[in-house]
């Protein structure tokens, strides 16, 4: 089994993984059920949380892991992605791949017969982040159904919000998308939500919706997405979350962020009861343990 895109999973599967993750989260002991198995992490783009949490998850399941380092590899000699995958598939039992090109993980799943887990493919999908986001939402709100969820920042290129919006369609969420016009949620995702009958609206200020929502999911706006740097300078402070914006929010509001954060949430928000982004990052371990266990056994 592979984990490539949230489009491959239904609500039942998502709930199965979240239950398994809860079991892992509640267990204080390591669970070395795969002591003879090897995980390969192949990150063709930088990563801190995703890679380390996969390696931690593998260790807790008793797996060994091998790590492909692009700067020390035959990529430097011009080896193709396809050849690299075919070679590593001979060494490992499961491959976790992050790549700057959309569709890379899917291609890997077509050319090799080992389970592939997509850890981010360009601006397309980041499904394991979505499982941990859903897990975090469920843990904080006690449910996934019928929540009011806002996403802010770079919604066009941010793969985490694409995967999350796709998955939330299964749970009848009311969605609010807050972004500069040219970084709004792509039409493909909006069309998909329309097809699923999900209600959403587009906004350009966090203040317009923050008092209504249960979850505010912030993402980073990247300077390199702007043709004119002056456009970036103009909007960069509009999408910054500050403590004074939290005066009238719902008590159950939780603020999430896939991290790394640059300046889109000021550090004094960290002290508030609403900040949940560090716990969110920690949830990556039980969720990825659950996903690894599932793909190794199905």
């Amino acid at each position, binding site marked *: 089994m592979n984990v490539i*895109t949230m489009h491959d999973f239904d609500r039942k599967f998502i709930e199965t993984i979240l239950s398994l993750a809860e079991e892992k989260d509640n267990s204080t002991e390591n669970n070395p059920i795969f002591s003879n198995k090897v995980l390969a992490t192949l990150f063709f783009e930088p990563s801190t949380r995703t890679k380390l949490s996969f390696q931690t998850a593998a260790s807790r399941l008793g797996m060994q892991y091998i790590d492909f380092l692009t700067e020390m590899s035959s990529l430097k000699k011009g080896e193709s*992605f396809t050849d690299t995958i075919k070679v590593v598939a001979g060494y490992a039992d499961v491959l976790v791949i992050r790549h700057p*090109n*959309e*569709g890379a993980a*899917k*291609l890997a799943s077509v050319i090799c017969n080992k389970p592939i887990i997509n850890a981010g493919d360009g601006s*397309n*999908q980041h499904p394991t982040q979505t499982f941990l986001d859903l897990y975090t939402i469920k843990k904080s709100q006690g449910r996934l159904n019928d929540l009011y969820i806002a996403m802010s920042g770079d919604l066009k290129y941010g793969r985490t919000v694409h995967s999350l919006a796709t998955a939330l369609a299964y749970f009848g969420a009311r969605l609010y998308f807050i972004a500069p016009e040219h970084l709004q949620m792509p039409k493909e995702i909006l069309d998909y939500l329309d097809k699923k009958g999900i209600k959403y609206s587009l906004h350009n200020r966090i203040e317009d919706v923050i008092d209504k929502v249960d979850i505010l999911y912030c993402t980073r706006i990247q300077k390199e997405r702007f043709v004119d740097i002056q456009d970036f300078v103009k909007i960069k402070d509009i999408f910054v979350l500050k403590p004074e914006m939290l005066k009238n929010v719902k008590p159950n509001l939780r603020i999430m962020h896939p991290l790394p954060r640059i300046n889109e949430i000021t550090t004094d928000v960290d002290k508030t009861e609403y900040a949940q982004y560090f716990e969110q990052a920690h949830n990556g371990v039980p969720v990825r343990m659950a996903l690894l266990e599932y793909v190794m056994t199905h």
Partner: protein
Amino acid sequence: MFVDEIKTGTVIDHITAGKGKKVYDILGIGENYPYKVALVMNVPSKTREKKDILKIEDVFLSDVQINLISLVAKDATINIIEDSQVKEKKKAILPNKIVGVGKCANVNCITNFESAAENHFDKESSKYKCLYCERLFSPEDLVK
């Protein structure tokens, strides 16, 4: 201008003027193609101002090939010629799946970087979804 009639083969008629070369390309007709081919462009037409026509001698196109034509010339008529007569007329319809033909219009799609990746698009209503990058494209986008 005069182009010989063909006794046996295929005449692709009513190609939108200027799209004849695209039909030629999508059928994989290249410099080593072994059959006689005539591409006539900007021919006067009764139903429109002008059209292109492609004639291929001794070749009957498969249904897969015929449907590929719809990506670039949706109004084309495919005439099957036997004994110098039109034996059958066919219309190209958009295929449910396109494999190994076309190019993903997403410049960052992995299929545009890896020669081992075979293009694969699945039809979703009137658009095509790339199996790899999951983006949706109009048929014309895949054969630009």
